[in-house]
């Protein structure tokens, strides 16, 4: 039988490729920390065995977000204008007692006791939700530390800061020629006397302490904030007045601080202190990282960070450590059984 299509030649058309979306934190910052981790968990979609590393930062962010919602009266209009618990701080002993009461009630099949404060209630609600995501505190101490820091922040910063918050989780993005870069800023803080976007500040919470941070990590965070400033400019037409990194871990201690610890914030004043070159340098650095990610994708090659370029803490919780030469100062770790 003759071929009825003989002589026909169908041109091969390349299908239009979709622009990749890159998140400032989940892609660029992660890749800069360790390409191997990034490749496994963000590109090849391996699921981490434990999300404990996410617990601390996530619980802080989400409970503070509820504090802002409380002040704005988002869920209950009667709380509008009020700092949760009026900044009251419960002691570790009181918090531990409440956690013990909850445990006892569960063990005895009784209704759980009412939380002693709004903050504790928000904290427990957030924890419940995170548990459904598989995110749990690795130790009871970590829970306590998280709640302690939240209380301290609420007492220290709440009265002045909450009223200035214009928006939370502000989404920003830039449509680049080859990709789309996007990020979420924790807080958009306004000047009470002037609501113009050029007078606003953008704040980003970090769960850790600033002291002890690797130089490379600090550099990446600074770049991140400068990139946010640029994305802000794309959205509002002007740069923000200031960008603020808030290291929540600096608040921790036996007693609630009455003044903000010196290392808690790292402020970058844009108008006076930062030239457009610095922002351009950060944008270029992130664009270069995106290019490196694209190259890694094309070659399916994801090299691990070199020893010393990544913190031992990050390596200690990485599921890929069993066949990685980076941890332990380049010695690797011994396999565990099972």
């Amino acid at each position, binding site marked *: 039988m003759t071929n009825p299509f003989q002589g026909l030649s169908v041109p091969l058309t390349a299908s239009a490729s979709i622009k990749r979306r890159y998140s400032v934190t989940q892609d660029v910052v992660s890749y800069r920390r360790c390409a191997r981790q990034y490749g496994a968990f963000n590109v*090849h979609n391996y699921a981490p065995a434990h999300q404990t590393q996410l617990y601390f930062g996530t619980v802080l962010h989400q409970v503070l977000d509820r504090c802002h919602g409380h002040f704005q009266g988002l869920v209950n209009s009667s709380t509008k204008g009020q700092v949760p618990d009026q900044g009251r701080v419960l002691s570790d002993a009181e918090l531990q007692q409440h956690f013990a009461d909850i445990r006892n009630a569960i063990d005895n099949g009784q209704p759980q006791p009412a939380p002693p404060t709004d903050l504790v209630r928000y904290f427990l609600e957030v924890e419940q939700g995170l548990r459904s995501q598989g995110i749990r505190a690795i130790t009871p101490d970590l829970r306590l530390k998280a709640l302690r820091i939240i209380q301290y922040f609420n007492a220290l910063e709440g009265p002045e800061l909450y009223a200035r918050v214009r928006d939370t989780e502000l989404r920003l993005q830039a449509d680049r020629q080859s990709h789309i870069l996007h990020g979420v800023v924790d807080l958009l803080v306004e000047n009470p006397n002037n609501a113009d976007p050029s007078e606003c500040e953008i704040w980003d919470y970090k769960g850790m302490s600033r002291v002890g941070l690797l130089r490379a990590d600090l550099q990446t965070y600074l770049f991140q904030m400068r990139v946010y400033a640029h994305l802000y400019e794309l959205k509002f037409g002007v740069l923000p007045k200031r960008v603020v990194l808030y290291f929540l871990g600096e608040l921790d201690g036996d007693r609630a601080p009455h003044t903000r610890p010196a290392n808690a914030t790292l402020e970058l004043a844009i108008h006076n202190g930062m030239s457009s070159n610095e922002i351009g340098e950060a944008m270029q650095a992130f664009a270069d990282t995106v290019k490196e990610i694209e190259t890694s994708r094309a070659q399916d090659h994801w090299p691990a960070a070199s020893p010393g370029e990544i913190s031992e803490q990050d390596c200690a919780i990485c599921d890929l450590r069993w066949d990685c030469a980076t941890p332990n100062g380049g010695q690797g770790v011994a396999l565990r059984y099972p």
Partner: protein
Amino acid sequence: MINLTDFHQALDQARGYPLNGQQRQAVDFGTGPLWIIAGPGSGKSEVLATRALKLICVDRVEPRSILLTTFTKKAARNLEDRLAAYLLALQRAQPARGSLDISDMRVGTLHALCNDILQEFRFPGYQNVRLLEDLEQHLFVYKHTAIVDHTDLAFWTKFDYAVTRWSPNGGYPPNKWARAKAAVILFNHIAEDLVDLARMRAAGGHWATLADLYVDYEATLRDRYRCDYAHLQQRFWEFLQVPMGQGFLNGSPDKNPPLTHVLVDEYQDTNPIQERIYLALAQQAPHNLTVVGDDDQALYRFRGGTVACMVNFDQACQVTWGVAPQQVPLTDNYRSHDEVVQFFNGYIRSFTEMNQPGVRAPNKQDMVPQAGRPAAHPGVVWISPRRAGDLGHAVADFIQQDLMGAGVISDWSQCVILLRSVQDTPRNAGPYIQALADRGIPVYNPRSRSFLDSEEVQCLLGVLIRLLDPAQSYMSAATPNGQPPFWQASIAGWCDALDQVLTGNAHDTTALDDYIHRSLAALAQEYQRHAGRFLGVTLTEILYRVLALEPFRTWRQDPNRNLRLSKVTRLFESYHSFNLDTLRAEPDGSQVAQNFLGQLYWMFFGYLIASGVDDDEDDEVIVPPGYLPMMTIHQAKGLEFPFVIVGHLGSSGRIGASQALEVELAPFRQDLYPRAARTPDLLALEDDIRLLYVAYSRAEYALVLAGTQAQVKSHVAAPGRDYTGFRRTVRTI
């Protein structure tokens, strides 16, 4: 600001062609509801993108005031890219016009947008919930709900259409997994069909029981911070009713502008709760709701979609707002060979069942061929071997010799084989897969359900079983009737696969062997040390230790194997979300807790084995170059290929739960307008016809029908079931 003429001029230049009259009418339409009935290949995505851009650039609508939904995430990203490219073209054409930020526009699937908006507004009860994908919803129902413990035979007999592979005649209720699966079907339909539970409860009997069990499910979801996709829509619907949701719709100073324009793609697959959501989103007069779709291409009844929403859009607008929508048909087809268009036009018209009131949209017109494909070659041909068993080989020969061999195509991805099911089994895609493999033609078929058959997956699971169950207790497991469980053979197969690798010469498995032996010794001690308690190690942690060893390290260098191994970790992460994967010891410290093992076998592996697991699909490309795609017709929705080969012509769709429930739930549904009364078998027949209509209309150069004479005769493959006419007009090759 740009005027309409300049706007069109700039975009005509950017895309390389002007819109036709109908398309222009749809784009330029002013205010009020708009009902675009867009046949296959009529450029509806182009119209949707251009209309959205016209709203922003010409009408000066704020991007944040526009919400645009697509059917898939991939379609949403495509649309965003298209919008960005056109915006750039407009800015180049009109540099003085200033820049516009369209990233504020809400574009995505309805599910994704509901999720985003609920999170953005911190809707109480929807913060931090875990959205349950299919696997997790089933596990959740199996583990946590009252309905799976409901073993009343009479109850399940009433819902036998929702239970697979079970008959009440055996005198036993369905097994636990069958109950869980049926429950998921029933619960999803109740939520998506916007059922009035009070009315259902008032009906008494099994309906009242089902209503109570559904309420239990909903409460359990909330208590455990979970939400399934059907309930995501319900929560969003609830959100729209309260002041917080009204704030989203009407806008608030400094926060967000009002929502003024809603555009919906693929409206024919909308379900009743989505229909209500869209109407609520467009509540502000003059109700700028644009819906685009084709009722003839409705495919998703099994997921709760109903073509009634598309067919009755005019009634919905009238009832809700007292306004009639403007109807705009898009009838020019820019995709297919003239004969293909004539064929599928004639096909959909030819069935008396499709010409009943309420089945198709009013005033439906034929498509007009405009693609201008070469007329020297036939548009529709038939591969008709004598025996059904030869179909795979006949199709593979055709592709290899007549297309690739003759230089008609230069890449396998220029063809597609469309089947009802692409599972790699003898009754489904198996013969095609085998025939193509025999000829060395690489196939892309991620939905073949063969994930669990792959060596790397079996070996990884085999290691886990070897460690947890060295005594092979799975071999002596039995159902309450004394039968071996359905999963037993598969699990034994995984262990065999591991043995073959350990004893073979292909890989150096010394380290893996050593790991298994040392771990068994360590576990024996750990069980003793933690008798009756948790061991402090999870299954996923063990997986990662195993993945660090050969042969897994080597396998991870292969992209396909690596993807499968990563999927194993994701499956276990789902299991982990139920807090079930931390190892626990028996109270006497002799071994792993038997209920831990039982849950792993019966609940987790049992589900995976019974349901089958698909490979991941590439989320960036439709088909990787160099591969011949094999797809279900559902997968092919919205796609087009130069050569489309349609198989499985002789088989009809089963009358399933979705058709039965469409009829059964009718008394309880909060319908906006009366729907045409159809029996489940008529609905199933309509679905079959629409399915083939979609398949037939995917072809650009040629539609190739693959089936024996008997197959074509026995089904609705031929227009109007007219086999003689089909044989006379379609060229056999």
